[in-house]
């Protein structure tokens, strides 16, 4: 800088500083006339005055000494191991302007929590403290998977602290670190944050300090919004000392909304602006406005447009640029009005394949043009003659519709099941249409929204249309926002909202299915229309039914029991509800299966059969009910021809029933026709590519076909899809065992045991493998465990037979084996394809036994 200019700045600065605040502008305007840059320089210096008051007044050596004091010695009462109330301090995990945070163990509930102590200056100020408590209480009312849960507010010797969920991971600020996040990550986190805001806003709670430092990303990739109570307190208003004091971090300022900068009354839309700034940063690695001073940032926020995100990161889809721009609108009336709107827009982007997928080869482009032309012609015909007489034959591959799990708007459990249930119901409705192949992307697995997997499926199955949406239920209303998207052109083909009384949920679902069928130009036959019309069901019964299906899909012992209860409840409310009977049948069938063995087959299966028959009596054309009955015929009645009849009837009625195909595949395994078993299972998988149980079914086909390497690969993929699923580990172990990789097998059995809290299957598998390896002590230990278990619960005799067999005790094997026959154990049906049987298959007694089964 020119010394002359510097002297000038200095002179003007001192002159202006000596004036009263309201005279400075006028003075400077006059003194700097014609030199805007000079005016700006001096103005910037003056704007710092307030913040400069306490700045560097404390000598550096003192600051250093205090920092050492702060970091070396937490107060003695918060040392690791010490107890505060019933929380045992584990370690200090952070400290900042807003207080010190400890990891602690809740000694009553045996879980880890985070304790956040308020800074003393806040704690010492009664009005601040009262406000803080109020806000923290409001925040503690927010129960949402993307909001860090506040458990309680407590006090320790006058020091108030908050007990929160302990989170393992990093802040989003840390994650961004100046670089754009991958698009999929930005979208996934963005959607989760939007959902958190949606939930908070629905409760009338505004965060007011949305910024990456307040967003935590857990190790499993879940976003968690932090500091609701604190944040609201911290950024309550312009006159808040924390904002205007020298302590105000510049980082916070950059995410402020224009109305916040102006000190106006705030509403939920301020959060949407700040969220837009966060999205901007996730997408580009940069802040929308990052001038050197508060004044410049404020000027940007109030008066300037941010650099378009796509000019900073050309890989961004244009639609994301538009979403961000709309979120960052200065005028809140032009912005997104609700978090749900941003969430819906982001969710739509999420299912689109990455830009690379569009880089078609020229011939493919020509084909695509032809296809579009064909569709256009078809549409023209359709318009003239009405959809019913659509004359162009539509091949199956033209009409592949993928259905993404609909999202519940408030993601508590009750909305979760409702959204899941609605998705299932919709898939069922659509699946009944003859010329449409429906691929469900819903999954019961833990990582339920695996977009990478989705995109692979969309490509592999040449999906042309994707259906997605949200479900909200509040009071007596249900609202569905559905969108039909073309994944290749990234365009929304159709979108519609349905807002109905809960009473009309079924009508709503049929209307939606019909509308979608129309949109994707599927010819609806009279029969289709008949199928779409459903007899009215009482809303409470439907509610219970959806609950039931939700639990049934999880397929654990506990969830199946819940499912049975809910289906029973649905029946109690509406005794004419055929689907509920079918659900009840399926619940008992799985409770009595060897995988679960929660009930003896003799107790469970007659109930299953009665329920299936009742369902058919109520609705002889209900595909689900035929599948339910088929399963009982297969697993308990051992009446294979009858089972085949039921499954094929179910598939005639609904070719898209994944469950019917899944079980039909089991029928083919039972008759030893592995190629056809594999074929059916593959078709089931096409319908529900993310279903863990169908994926395990594919593994069974490979295992029975003695293709162990592929079976291992398949089962392992399921364990990756849902690491806590015991059956996946169990079956993986079996494949390893056949491969001779005993250590790995034992490892997997142990995992199965751990995830199922020692279910009989895993303990028996361990006992068997130890016995086979000559590890008698370990085998005896597991066997004793199994015997103990048998005193209090049903343990299938088949397991004892299997252990005896591994011990080389043939008489014992047959003794227990015949008992298993007496129990009508379902697994016996597959014994003649089970590789473990080996030479035993030649044993006359074994042959006699199998003959009993396969009449």
């Amino acid at each position, binding site marked *: *800088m020119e010394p002359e200019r*510097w002297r000038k700045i*200095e002179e003007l*600065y*001192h002159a202006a*500083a000596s004036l009263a605040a309201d005279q400075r502008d006028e003075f400077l305007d006059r003194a700097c006339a014609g030199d805007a840059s000079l005016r700006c320089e001096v103005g*910037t*210096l*003056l704007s*710092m*005055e307030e*913040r*400069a008051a306490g*700045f*560097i007044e*404390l*000598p*550096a*050596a*003192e*600051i*250093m*000494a*205090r*920092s*050492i*004091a702060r*970091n*070396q*010695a937490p*107060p*003695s009462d918060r040392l690791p191991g010490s107890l505060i109330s019933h929380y045992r301090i584990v370690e200090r995990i*952070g*400290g*900042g*302007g*807003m207080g010190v945070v400890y990891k602690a163990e809740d000694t009553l509930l045996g879980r880890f929590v985070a304790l956040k102590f308020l800074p003393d200056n806040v704690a010492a100020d009664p009005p601040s403290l009262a406000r803080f408590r109020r806000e923290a209480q409001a925040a503690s009312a927010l129960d949402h998977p993307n909001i860090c849960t506040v458990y309680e507010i407590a006090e320790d010797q006058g020091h108030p602290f908050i007990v929160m969920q302990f989170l393992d991971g*990093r*802040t989003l*600020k*840390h994650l961004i*670190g*100046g670089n754009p996040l991958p698009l999929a990550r930005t979208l996934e986190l963005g959607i989760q944050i939007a959902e958190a805001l949606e939930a908070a806003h629905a409760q009338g709670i505004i965060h007011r300090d949305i910024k990456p*430092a307040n967003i935590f990303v857990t190790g499993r990739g879940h976003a968690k919004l932090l500091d609701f109570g604190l944040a609201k307190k911290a950024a309550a208003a312009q006159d808040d000392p924390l904002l205007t004091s*020298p*302590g*105000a*971090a*510049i*980082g916070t300022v*950059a995410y402020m909304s224009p109305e916040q900068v102006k000190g106006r009354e705030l509403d939920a839309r301020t959060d949407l602006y700040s969220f837009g700034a966060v999205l901007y940063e996730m997408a580009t690695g940069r*802040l929308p406005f*990052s*001038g*050197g*001073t*508060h004044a410049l*940032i404020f000027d940007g926020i109030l008066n300037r447009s941010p650099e378009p995100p796509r000019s900073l990161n050309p890989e961004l889809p244009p639609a994301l640029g538009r979403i961000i721009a709309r979120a960052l609108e200065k005028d809140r009336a032009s912005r997104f009005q609700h978090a749900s709107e941003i969430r819906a827009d982001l969710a739509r982007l999420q299912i689109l394949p990455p830009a690379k997928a569009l880089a078609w080869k020229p011939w493919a482009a020509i084909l695509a043009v032809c296809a579009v032309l064909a569709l256009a012609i078809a549409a023209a015909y359709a318009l003239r003659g009405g959809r019913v007489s659509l004359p162009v034959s539509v091949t199956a591959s033209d009409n592949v519709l993928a259905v993404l799990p609909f999202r519940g708007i408030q993601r508590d459990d009750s909305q979760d099941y409702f959204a899941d249930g609605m998705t299932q119901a919709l898939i069922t409705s659509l699946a009944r249409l003859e010329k449409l192949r429906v691929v469900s992307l819903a999954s019961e697995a833990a990582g339920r929204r695996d977009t990478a997997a989705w995109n692979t499926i969309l490509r592999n199955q040449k999906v042309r249309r994707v259906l997605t949406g949200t479900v909200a239920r509040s009071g007596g209303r249900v609202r569905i926002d559905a969108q039909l998207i073309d994944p290749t052109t990234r365009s929304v083909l159709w979108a519609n909202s349905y807002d109905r009384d809960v009473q009309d949920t079924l009508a709503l679902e049929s209307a939606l299915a019909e509308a979608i069928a129309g949109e994707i130009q599927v010819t609806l036959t009279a029969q289709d229309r008949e199928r779409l019309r459903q007899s009215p069901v009482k809303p409470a019964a439907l509610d219970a039914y959806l609950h039931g299906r939700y639990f049934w899909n999880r397929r654990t012992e506990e969830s199946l029991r819940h499912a049975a209860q809910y289906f029973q409840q649905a029946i109690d409310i509406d005794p004419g509800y055929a689907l509920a009977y079918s659900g009840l049948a399926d619940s008992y069938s799985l409770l009595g299966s060897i995988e679960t063995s929660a009930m003896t087959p003799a107790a469970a299966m007659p109930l299953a059969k009665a329920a299936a028959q009742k369902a058919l009596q109520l609705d002889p054309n209900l595909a689900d009910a035929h599948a339910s009955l088929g399963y009982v015929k297969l697993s308990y009645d051992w009446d294979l021809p009858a089972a085949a009849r039921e499954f094929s009837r179910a598939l005639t009625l609904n070719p898209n029933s994944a469950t019917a195909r899944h079980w039909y595949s089991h029928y083919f395994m039972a008759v030893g026709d592995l190629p056809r078993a594999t074929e059916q299972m593959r078709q089931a998988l096409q319908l529900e590519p993310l279903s863990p149980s169908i994926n395990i079914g594919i593994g069974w086909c490979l295992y029975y076909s003695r293709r162990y390497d592929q079976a291992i690969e398949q089962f392992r993929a399921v364990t990756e899809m849902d690491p806590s699923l015991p059956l996946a580990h169990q079956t993986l172990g079996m494949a390893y065992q056949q491969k001779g990789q005993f250590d790995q097998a034992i490892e997997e059995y142990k995992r199965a045991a751990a995830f199922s809290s020692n279910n009989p299957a895993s303990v028996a598998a361990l006992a068997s493998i130890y016995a086979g390896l000559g590890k008698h002590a370990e085998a005896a230990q597991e066997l004793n465990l199994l015997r103990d278990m048998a005193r209090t619960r049903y343990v299938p005799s088949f397991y004892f037979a299997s252990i005896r067999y591994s011990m080389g005790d043939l008489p014992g094997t047959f003794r227990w084996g015949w008992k298993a026959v007496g129990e009508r154990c379902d697994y016996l049906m597959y014994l003649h394809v089970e590789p473990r049987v080996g030479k035993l298959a030649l044993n006359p007694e074994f042959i006699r036994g199998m003959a009993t089964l396969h009449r």
Partner: protein
Amino acid sequence: MRKKLSKTVNIARPAEPDASAPYVILRPMNAPGRGGYIANPSANEVTGLLQAWSAGDETALDKLVPLVHQELRARARHYMAGERSGHTLQTTALVNEAYLRLVDSPARNWESRTHFFAVCAQLMRRILVDFARSRNFEKRGGGARDLPLEEAMNVCQESPAQIVAVDDALKSLAAIDPRKSRVVELRFFGGLNVEEIAEVLKVSPETVMRDWKMAKVWLLGQIDRSQSRGA
């Protein structure tokens, strides 16, 4: 640069320095009451080291660093004791003691009192900034860019990060206005009061105050700028 720090704890400390006492408390390092320290250079040696360093001998700094660190830690213990007993320490002028105790009478061994002050301020700046940098670094777990804690990001707050940020900004200020930069160095790093700074710089106390006032706002602006560039 950063030396392994002694973990030795000095329990026996002289009585709490009085805030109202004259700021220069000259006490040789090996004076009674300072027992328990590791073998330290004598006061004369410290003076020699200080002079050697100011004459350009960088190796002398290596021996001075641990002494300053020890002083800082001793000070830190006082804060901790103060926090526990519930009263806040009066800290004014204590910092001067921190390094003046390192040497014997400046009047005796230095060409002038002001020269001594100036060298001490430079020394403190150098050591404190290095120390602050290393502490920041420790907290960042090795990554300098992605520090999660707000505290350390917040250079406007009293923190090691602030010390580093001020040092950087001060270098820019020195290029534009060397005197203002020295005022800040003498006051912030050296802990001198206005009169002493006036004496060192041979200007009036009023000029020092004007320089100080403008330097502060300019530095804040500069720190903001570099922060948002780095953010």
